């Protein structure tokens, strides 16, 4: 009782597992398409595994939505960037470019750090001066930091361009100039004596965002903070590229960050196409190879069959994971090598099953008929035997996919993932190796695992839906 394609699809669609599976699959595919279209190809090397790119992100920060649950409000993370000044003041030849950042600060704890960066400054005569001052909610103004852009070196001709390949990053937190300014500020406004080194050990960012209550005790000051970065220029042609202010938070984004400050949302999203690619590509190659060898061996028999069976037996007798570890370790960590290894170890299971199916089909009358009219052997295998086993092979393709996704995740977890392509397994690996689980960074540990399971379950559900199609005995009698 063979089914045609339309009947098969109808039978498949009848089950709820199939529907859920297909909905899941289309979500996975949509996420993958988005990533492939919007991420650069060298995302892993250039961004993900490049700690300096994440320097301005808060480290080990839980997702921002935890503020909705917890009683104490943690500070959020602000990254504010201007390419044009908010204000320009002219006094003679001096031109002051002001960049004004307004922050409404309502958290119960001070920020975790403060820094600002300047990208691409050009001057023609005198080097520009940069000043950062803060107007607090209590209307007190503090000059926090100032510096002069480095002067021309010997033989350099104007225009003098600075910080254009690497932005100048100034961390207020840990800066002694700022500490001195704050020490004076505390004495002047509150009559509190704190040496600059003491300010430094408490944290410049903490003192800036709070008022002293008792000896060395500070209370967070909520309200509107205005950060002003003034750049003084002395020539009409002087230019400033970009100014960025970072107020370090303790929570970040939708998924939080890891201990290097990497935005987990971005990394987890990148895992979609990689997982699908490894699962589907490996599974397809494995199934084609396994089925092909099974058909050839089963139909031709004799020495070819014997050789294929012996090799399959041999590979089946090897414990898989230790060998994958060994080979990935010796041959190097690369996604193509991994796919190759998974194929090498994956095909025998299918070959053995397909072979036994072919052995049964071989004695069928339609084969005998084909032989009697002189059909070549490859024709019989391709046109008569393959269509008979095709539904089963297709079901196996789906059924194998989660196995490969899990194997890749396991290898990545053991530190043998391709370092140029971040995967969910690798995110978990770093979370495990750097001790994230021992300090309870749940936002780092739970989502990658859920995503792995979700992807694997998708294929399990589709495989379950296909079972009645492939195995007619399971079909319900209408």
């Amino acid at each position, binding site marked *: 009782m063979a089914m045609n394609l339309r009947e098969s699809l109808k039978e498949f669609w009848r089950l709820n597992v199939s529907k859920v599976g297909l909905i899941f699959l289309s979500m996975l595919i949509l996420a993958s398409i988005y990533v492939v279209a919007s991420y650069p190809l060298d995302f892993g090397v250039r961004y993900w595994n490049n700690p300096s790119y994440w320097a301005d992100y808060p480290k080990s920060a839980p997702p921002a939505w935890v503020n909705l649950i917890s009683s104490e409000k943690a500070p959020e993370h602000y990254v504010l960037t201007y390419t044009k000044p908010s204000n320009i003041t002219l006094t003679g030849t001096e031109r002051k470019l002001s960049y004004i950042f307004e922050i409404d600060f309502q958290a119960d704890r001070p920020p975790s750090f403060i820094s600002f960066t300047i990208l691409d400054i050009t001057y023609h005569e005198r080097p520009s001066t940069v000043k950062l001052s803060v107007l607090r909610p209590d209307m007190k103004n503090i000059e926090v930091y100032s510096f002069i852009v480095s002067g021309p070196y010997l033989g350099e001709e104007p225009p003098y361009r600075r910080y254009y390949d690497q932005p100048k990053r100034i961390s207020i937190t840990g800066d002694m100039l700022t500490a001195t300014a704050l020490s004076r500020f505390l004495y002047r406004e509150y009559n509190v004596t704190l040496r600059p080194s003491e300010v430094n050990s408490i944290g410049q960012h903490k003192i800036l965002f709070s008022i002293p209550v008792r000896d060395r005790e500070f209370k967070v000051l909520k309200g509107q903070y205005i950060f002003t970065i003034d750049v003084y220029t002395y020539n009409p042609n002087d230019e400033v590229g970009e100014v960025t202010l970072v107020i370090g938070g303790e929570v970040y984004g939708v998924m939080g960050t890891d201990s290097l400050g990497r935005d987990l949302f971005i990394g987890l999203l990148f895992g979609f196409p990689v997982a699908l690619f490894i699962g589907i590509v490996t599974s397809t190659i494995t199934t084609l190879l396994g089925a092909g060898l099974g058909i050839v061996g089963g139909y031709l028999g004799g020495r070819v069959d014997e050789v294929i069976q012996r090799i399959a037996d041999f590979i089946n007798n090897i414990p898989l994971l230790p060998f994958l570890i060994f080979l990935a370790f010796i*041959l190097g960590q690369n996604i193509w090598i991994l796919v190759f290894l998974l194929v090498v170890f994956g095909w025998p299971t299918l070959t053995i099953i397909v072979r036994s199916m072919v052995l049964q089909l071989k004695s069928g009358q339609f084969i005998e008929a084909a032989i009697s009219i002189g059909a070549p052997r490859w024709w019989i295998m391709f046109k008569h035997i393959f269509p008979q086993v095709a539904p089963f092979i297709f079901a196996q393709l789906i059924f194998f996919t989660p196995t490969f996704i899990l194997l890749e995740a396991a290898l990545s977890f053991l530190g043998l993932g391709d370092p140029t392509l971040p995967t969910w397994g690798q995110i978990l690996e770093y979370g495990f190796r750097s001790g994230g689980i021992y300090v309870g960074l749940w936002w780092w540990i739970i989502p990658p695992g859920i995503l792995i399971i979700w992807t694997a379950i998708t294929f399990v559900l589709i495989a379950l839906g296909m079972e009645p199609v492939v195995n007619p005995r399971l079909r319900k009698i209408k």
Partner: protein
Amino acid sequence: MGLARTLIFRATTLALVLILVVFFMVIILGATGTSDKILQAMVNEEVMMLRQALAKTIKDPEELNRVLAIRKQELMEFYGLTKPWYIRLPDMAWRVITLDLGKARTLKTFAGGNKVSEIIMERLPNTIILVTSATAISALVGLIVGVRIATRVGGLLDRISSYFSAVSYAIPTWWIGIILILVFSFFLRLFPFGGLYSTPPPTDPFLRFLDMLWHAVLPVTTLVIALVGVWIYTTRTIVLNTAQEDFVNAARAKGFPEELIRRRYIIRVAAPPIITNVILGLATSISGAILTETVFSWPGIGRLFYDAVLVMDEVVVIALTYIFTLVYVVARFILEVLYVILDPRVRY
């Protein structure tokens, strides 16, 4: 006599597999130049020791270097480094089989030694304890639950367990282990984060044993979660098929109590195919052991594998790959012996 012949045949096949595996490994090591690196390290080690020994007797540095150069050449010839890698394949294979691979670069025994075979042998028992106890628990639970749901097909327990076995196919067990740590060690503080004993370990042997049990709860649970689904599902299917056989109906017709029928007529007959499935599941146990030990810092050979990869100690990686294959093959053989004992039909 049939029994002995069957077993000898199986033993030879498995031994052959082991030898082929070793040759396969050695070919890879040779072709990638790794075996050269290992042997070179062994030569350098000996030359260095010789230099220290000779430095006391030979004072002239030039004379010392000349002697050492000669000795080094001799050693290179002895280890076969002057010949291409495919010539010394059998020699290298023998080294792997006897674990004569020199010294581990950074990994050490608990006492501080760095001989590869000692490092491994010291940790092997810990792995065996973990895997066998998890397997025993899974088998017990699987057999009890499997037989029980086979008699009530379609019941609640049956549906739960069939969903469980479908879902467990898609869950990385090692991640479950991590979640167990997060929940029971970090948030609830009920169990330790990992390891075999507390630091310092209790001196009283009984307390020490209890301490180990306490440390074993989470890893064993993780492994059981990995293994038990297959046990339940296989037992259920096989028992179900056997229960429909004519001889079972005949026994029922004779009016035997249900318990007796279950024990003597169903389980006894269903046992050998269940064993077959356990043999097929062995690989799962081994990979489960590697990952679970890694997650729980259980000082067995699985965790050692992870450590060796982490610090790039290739000698240990090679030795462990071989040991895992050996353990796999031996375990397989033991199960096959069990199979032959349980199923008289095999003794042809």
